[in-house]
């Protein structure tokens, strides 16, 4: 019969815990037969174990999803072998060096003032500085018929000018390059219908995509596509009446703020249902 109170020979909590996990000491087993508090403690350990095992069971699809992700990894590796990656790095380095050299040539004779490129006629003659590169009569109006009242634009010269120029600097904006992974939250009216919308809007050559966490209230979708495709994808979803909650780029209709490089972006969408 179990006692109601601890006895003076109750094992320590560490001994009880160790016995529960590894067994071995029969005196503890005998003790539990007669000591309710210690028996209760061990019962608690068991309850915790059972709960953790029950709650942390992995979903059925997990292994399949992971195996698929690893196979995609292999395909990517085959598609971009080491030499191709090195060539890409070399190309980027060459571009960086070229740009740096060009900037150096354009700023070298100047007085160190901040400079900007302007197209002829916009700058104040008094504040010009540096080298003037004359480029005569280059027509930029490739399709004059398409825009009413569009006058032919000519570039008469390209020159670096001082920051004090009267040119409208507010129009000069840094472009954003998308990262390798983008996560957006979209709000939709109907989660179930949204699966169809997603598949319809997905660029045709995007073969790798997956859904997860599907319920009536939410859904997660992931796909890999180029940055340009992603911008179009986002535009399409917006056009279908979806509301983009996240403020991160790409934003619908804001392609002019992006620096598109053609790199692959892992796009994750978390869909939530709009509140009535």
């Amino acid at each position, binding site marked *: 019969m179990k006692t109601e109170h601890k006895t003076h020979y109750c094992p320590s*909590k560490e001994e009880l*815990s*160790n016995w529960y*996990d590894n067994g071995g000491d029969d005196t503890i087993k005998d003790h539990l037969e007669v000591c309710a508090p210690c028996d209760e403690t061990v019962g608690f350990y068991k309850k915790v174990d059972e709960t953790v095992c029950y709650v942390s069971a992995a979903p059925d699809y*997990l292994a399949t999803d992971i195996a698929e*992700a690893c196979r995609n990894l292999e395909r990517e590796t085959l598609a971009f072998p080491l030499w191709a990656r090195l060539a890409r790095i070399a190309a980027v380095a060459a571009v960086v060096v070229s740009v740096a050299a060009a900037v150096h040539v354009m700023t070298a004779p100047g007085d160190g003032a901040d400079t900007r490129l302007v197209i002829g006629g916009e700058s104040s003659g008094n504040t010009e500085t540096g080298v003037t590169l004359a480029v005569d009569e280059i027509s930029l109006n490739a399709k004059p018929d398409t825009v009413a009242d569009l006058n032919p634009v000519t570039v008469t010269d390209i020159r670096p000018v001082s920051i004090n120029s009267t040119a409208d600097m507010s129009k000069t904006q840094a472009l954003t390059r998308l990262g390798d992974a983008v996560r957006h939250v979209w709000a939709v009216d109907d989660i179930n219908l949204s699966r169809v919308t997603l598949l319809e809007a997905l660029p045709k050559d995007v073969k790798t995509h997956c859904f997860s966490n599907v319920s009536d209230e939410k859904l997660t979708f992931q796909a890999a596509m180029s940055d340009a495709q992603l911008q179009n994808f986002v535009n399409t979803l917006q056009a279908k009446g979806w509301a983009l909650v996240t403020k991160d780029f790409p934003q619908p209709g804001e392609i002019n703020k992006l620096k598109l490089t053609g790199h692959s972006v892992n796009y994750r969408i978390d869909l939530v249902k709009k509140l009535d």
Partner: protein
Amino acid sequence: MSDNKDQLSDAEIVERFKQGEHHLFDILVQRYSNKAYQIAYGVLGHREDSEEVAQDVFVRVYKALPKFRGDSEFTTWMYRIAMNLARNKYRYNKSRGANRKISMQETIDDDDKRTLIQVPETRLSPDDQAGLDEYQRNIMREIENLPPLYRDALVLRNIDEMSYEKIAEVLDCKLGTIKSRIARAREELRKRLAR
């Protein structure tokens, strides 16, 4: 070497993977993806995050396997990666205040059609909570709130009743330290749940 792929040992699979039989990696995924998930879940208490971590574990293992020297067992190495990634994610979530409720406002068409979207970021998502009684939910919440050193040892112990020796190896601790941490984790848990 056995021809029955399911009966291959981890060491054999790793060796053959290194020789180019990459398809054998699927067997490792089948065997251990649930373990990686369980470790992540024990630390994070969040289903989606745990799936993400479990996937990340195997992507990293896949990339690093050619350089795996085999000084320790494959599982020890893999569990270490899982534990480290789960801890990183935990810290990341913590720094972002993942326990707080956040609200986001979004203009759909015009100002009259503003939608207020409440995104609850509780540690246990509604899916996770389904099927649990209140006591079980409290257990999971308190495990997550345990001091990380205690929590990690207890979480590993619950992965197929991992031996204390193996836990010590994964966490790079002495056996006595693991015994003590697991006991303290349980005791701390018991005290917190008794309040």
